[in-house]
């Protein structure tokens, strides 16, 4: 492909190729501080391409391809090339990664232990993780958390945090502007702006952290805590995992161990400050 780069996020090394230079340049800016390992071949390939040669210039639209593809995925305009790259990378991990049990969950760590937050889009799991990452925690990831079937540890996948809509302003007020990517407005997921994790989080991305708390956040309602039983946590996490079935017995073993050893709670919160307070409160009980 005309333009390409390599990026290592957590245990996964990506090769990203593109028909256009802009998405690759944007990625390289966002991931400039990530460790480089030129001797390591990529595990996964992402391709950003024009469906027809002339569509590179004429109303350019970016198709997302790679080792694994979603058949009827719609292309994105070139101005959203960075989002296309992010979606392509997520797709390869979601459908192709087999070393760990993959949870669609954000995570943050403190003193070698981690809190995992699983929820649907809009639950605030990304924002909570980003906020924790700015308040004394190590951000492990805003999208995927990987569970090692052998040890039960959580492993980080600290890609650039995908801030959406209101979360953009919330985080922009707290961090150095140099850590923010370009504003992508009007995407299918609303406005998006990427946040580069703190250098400590990137430097520590290979350090595992034992899960100590499992949360199912829900943004919007009054502050509330609800204890979640092992069985329900198990079922919710099978639904939040893209490779649970493919891992077979190893996936079952990893997930049962997780829900049996880690307390789980549903939390509702009306705003970020309340959400953070709930996480800290439950953490104090769980990790002590």
């Amino acid at each position: 492909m005309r333009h390409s780069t390599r990026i290592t996020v957590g245990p996964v090394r990506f090769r990203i190729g593109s028909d256009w230079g802009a998405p690759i340049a944007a990625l390289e800016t966002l991931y400039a501080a990530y460790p480089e390992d030129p001797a390591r071949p990529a595990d996964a390939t992402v391709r950003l391409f024009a469906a027809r040669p002339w569509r590179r210039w004429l109303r350019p639209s970016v198709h997302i391809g790679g080792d694994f593809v979603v058949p009827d995925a719609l292309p994105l305009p070139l101005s959203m090339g960075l989002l296309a790259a992010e979606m392509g990378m997520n797709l390869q991990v979601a459908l192709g990664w087999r070393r760990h049990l993959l949870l669609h969950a954000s995570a943050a760590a403190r003193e070698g232990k981690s809190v995992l937050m699983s929820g649907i889009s809009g639950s605030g799991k990304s924002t909570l993780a980003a906020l924790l990452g700015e308040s004394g925690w190590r951000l492990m990831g805003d999208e995927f958390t990987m569970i090692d079937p052998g040890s039960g540890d959580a492993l980080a996948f600290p890609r650039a945090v995908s801030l959406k809509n209101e979360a953009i302003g919330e985080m922009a007020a707290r961090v150095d502007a140099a850590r923010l990517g370009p504003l992508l407005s009007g995407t299918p997921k609303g406005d998006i702006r990427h946040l580069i994790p703190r250098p400590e989080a990137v430097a520590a991305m290979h350090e595992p952290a034992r899960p100590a708390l499992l949360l199912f956040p829900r943004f919007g309602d009054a502050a509330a805590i609800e204890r979640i039983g092992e069985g329900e946590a198990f079922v919710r996490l099978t639904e939040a995992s893209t490779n649970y079935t493919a891992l077979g017995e190893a996936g079952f073993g990893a997930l049962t161990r997780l829900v049996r050893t880690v307390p789980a709670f549903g939390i509702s919160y009306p705003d970020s400050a309340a959400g953070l307070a709930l996480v800290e409160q439950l953490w104090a009980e769980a990790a002590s």
Partner: protein
Amino acid sequence: MSAVQHLTDLLAGRCEAAMLTAGEWEGVIGAARAEAMLAALAHRLEDAPLPGPVAALFCDERAAAAVATKQALWEAEMARRALASEHIEFVLLKGTAYAAAELSCAAGRQIGDLDILVPVHDIGRAENELLEAGWEWVKSDPYDDAYYREHMHELPPLIHKARDRMIDVHHTILPQTHRTTPDPLALVTDAVMTKSGFAVLSPADMACHSAAHLLADGDLQGGLRNLWDFHCLTRDFAASDPGFWGRLDARADKHGLRAVVHRAARLARDVFGAALPEGWDRRDPRDRWFKRRLLARDDWGRASNFALRQAFYIRSHWLRMPPRLLARHLWTKWRRRAAR
């Protein structure tokens, strides 16, 4: 050298894994993934010295393939239980059969659907039993459904509502409208039992089916994996039975697949370095188009050589359908697309 060339060299044992650069490995991994052969390559190189990250990835692939194989065999067991009450006998085909028979090509082989062969007179009963056991039709389009039933070699695909796995129930191994019509009765009659209690095709029939699947039943998409099947099958069968190639010749004749099987053998020689006996080890200038089609994959895992792929696509329809049927089929499909 291209990535797909490296891939075939590694599979054939023509090149040292230790010689590849990081960039070359990326190409090999991408091409192998695109050909659904990464786990097969991982098995082939299990004892080779590999860079750490490649060894780790290959270890993942082998573990994942072991789970997938177990799940595929479980699906075969589910079909056996569904058909047992009516005493309907069936023969496993393709990937699941290789796994059930513990053949070497099963190592890391991706298994998609469960393919079974049922005698044609049992096909209606088999369909009823499967529907009762939780399988459902995938295609609800009346034209497609009728097309399958009238012209194809299998029932319209069924999918299990709980396990989300497909089953293809065949009554022969090539479409009824194909220029070549193998003898399905002979396939079933001469099937052999595996230790695990499943019937699979006899060695010669299995090689015939593998060749037919590779060269006569499609546009050679994913053909490299099918050729690897054929290569491993014939190599192993010939190693344990000195008369195998002769038996294969006779059997291919019976099914009208002589040219197809011979071409598959020559391609296995040209691509994977297979050793062929006398009478098989010939040259045919047309083989190079097939080889080129099999290797039409670039270093990013993309299908390359558009014109050649199109030519093979047209060829696949030409082989499978007489001209009048083909014209009618294309007309129906075109009208439906235009209406949408």
